């Protein structure tokens, strides 16, 4: 029984890590209409930025901020230099998927010569053990959970109670109508890339911190879990991604306890397949995956 209690504790950590990644990914898709398959590679690049800062003797929590800033700038530039010109040119959604996959391949292989194939890990003590109701977590893991909760609340506040959030929701719902109502949609899209990029960078550092070690090859795995949570909740729906992260985080950790940790991603994939067969629009979306591609 204690094995499953421990797994539940890990599930809490895991869902926090996944939520940080999935919310940014799904917001990019919902508001800018871009399935950014390079998301996992931006995550891993940010994790490496934090790694080099951490190696210079700075705390990883400061490195995390640097990772988030790097992710924001990188994502912003990616959109400005590659995605946005292609979208303006009228490239189809499918064409954009191919472009983003090509970008992902390029980032991973530009990163490889710089950081090598070897796995690295942050120099950070995992903190003291804290026990609560049979669940044992390190202080670092509790900080990760707290960070995720704070970020999720911040996103909720942003979307719900600010003018910018309203403009984002309007742009997501109907960009042309939003523009006609006087919303500077281009500026909104720029801000969205900065915010989601920061989330992406943060998620990369947190995911790297949560695993014992990481390497460039982990980018694809990061992408899959973010994708699975986003699709499960209904792509483009930030709250859906949060729910998706909770479900996938719990189920993967429980299955790891019951079965084998090597199949975590496979279990996430199994959930993804079930959703695609039974409810392709995801848990929250009304149209989502069923709508015709433009």
């Amino acid at each position, binding site marked *: 029984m204690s094995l499953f209690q421990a797994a539940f504790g890990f599930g809490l950590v895991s869902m926090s890590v996944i939520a940080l990644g999935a919310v940014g990914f799904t917001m990019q898709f919902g508001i800018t209409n871009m399935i950014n398959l390079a998301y996992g590679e931006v995550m891993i690049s940010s994790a490496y930025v934090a790694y080099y800062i951490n190696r210079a003797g700075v705390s990883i929590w400061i490195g995390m901020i640097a990772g988030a800033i790097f992710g924001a700038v990188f994502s912003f530039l990616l959109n400005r230099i590659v995605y946005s010109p292609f979208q303006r040119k009228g490239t189809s*959604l499918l064409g954009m998927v*191919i472009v983003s996959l090509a970008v992902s391949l390029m980032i991973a292989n530009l990163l490889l010569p710089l950081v090598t194939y070897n796995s690295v890990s942050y120099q950070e003590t995992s903190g003291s053990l804290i026990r609560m109701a049979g669940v044992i977590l390190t202080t670092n893991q509790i900080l990760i959970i707290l960070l995720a909760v704070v970020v999720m609340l911040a996103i909720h506040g942003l979307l719900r109670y600010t003018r910018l959030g309203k403009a984002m929701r309007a742009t997501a719902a109907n960009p042309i109508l939003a523009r006609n109502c006087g919303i500077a949609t281009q500026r909104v899209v720029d801000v969205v890339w900065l915010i989601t990029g920061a989330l992406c960078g943060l998620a990369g550092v947190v995911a790297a911190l949560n695993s014992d070690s990481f390497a460039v090859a982990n980018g694809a795995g990061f992408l899959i879990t973010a994708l699975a949570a986003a699709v499960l909740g209904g792509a483009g729906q930030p709250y859906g991604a949060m729910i998706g992260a909770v479900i996938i985080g719990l189920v993967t950790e429980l299955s790891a306890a019951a079965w084998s940790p090597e199949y975590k991603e496979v279990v996430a994939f199994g959930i993804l397949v079930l959703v695609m067969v039974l409810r392709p629009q995801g848990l929250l979306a009304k149209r989502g995956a*069923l709508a015709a591609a433009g």
Partner: protein
Amino acid sequence: MNTYYAANLLVYAAVDIIACIALNLQFGVSGIVNFSFIVFQAAGAYAAAVLSMPPDTASGYDFQIYVGGFQLPFPLPWIGGAIAGGLLSIPVGFVVLRKLRSDYQAIALLVTSIIANTVITNARPFLNGAAGLALVPQPLQDQIDPVSDSYQYFYIGLSALSVVLVWFVASRIVNSPFGRSLRAMRDNEVAASALGKNPVALKMMIFIVGGVIAGLSGAILVGFIQLWAPSVWLYPETIILFAAVIVGGRGNNLGAVLGALLVPVGFEEVTRLLPNQFDLGGLVITPQVGLIPALQWVAIGLLIIGFLWFRPEGVRPEPRRVFEGSPDPSEVELVSTA
């Protein structure tokens, strides 16, 4: 030129041409972005391998674990590989192609490709896991000595024959009423279904046909290189084939062949010519191990993005099909822009 070098080059070229024709049927002609294409090639290769290998208890083969080991004579493993590719297409197509929006189909297939590789890598008893299968028997190796020159010619001939066969089938498909329906679906799915075409059935059919051809390409390759492991069918391999089809020209078989010769074959040959050291006026630079392959991938990415930006129709664009009695295309354009 060395016979082995020639055989290597030509057999790889044949495999890439067959794969590109299959991918072109799915992606170029029908608009299915099959990011898990390489999985179907792998299925064919694995199937051909276990059909031709002896059981894993046989002496010399007992260092690996795998299912099957049927020791079937030559044409059967290749046919089995093609069937395996087609069979695998059915459940994958069933999940992906029925309800999902086309960009979701693409990401679902990409994820399928990554996960399939993870599963095969970790599940050792099934197909020997990460180490993969080795010592796969070559076709008719008991009849002709595989290390002789004549065997190389024989294998080149077999591959060439397969290319001709696949080319024939593919051009029949492209030029048939079925091919016209596929193109109609690709260009405007709503209009095609309004005319009574069932897009899901069309997609399923071409997905299975593509799977069969992909399986055959895998069977040909594994019979030549004699080993197959998860590391040779990682998802970026699919992206090379996409680059080939995009560069060569989507929607026409000639473009697919051209792309196969330019991208996978051409790239391999060009990097073979690169020196291990660069002498920049006395300053000798030795690239670190893995730098050249990494840059090769970057170049593939640049090639895709560059072609999609500057010449999305590829080196050889799809010919415009005009039928007797149809209005002059230039007039149609005038009307639509007015």
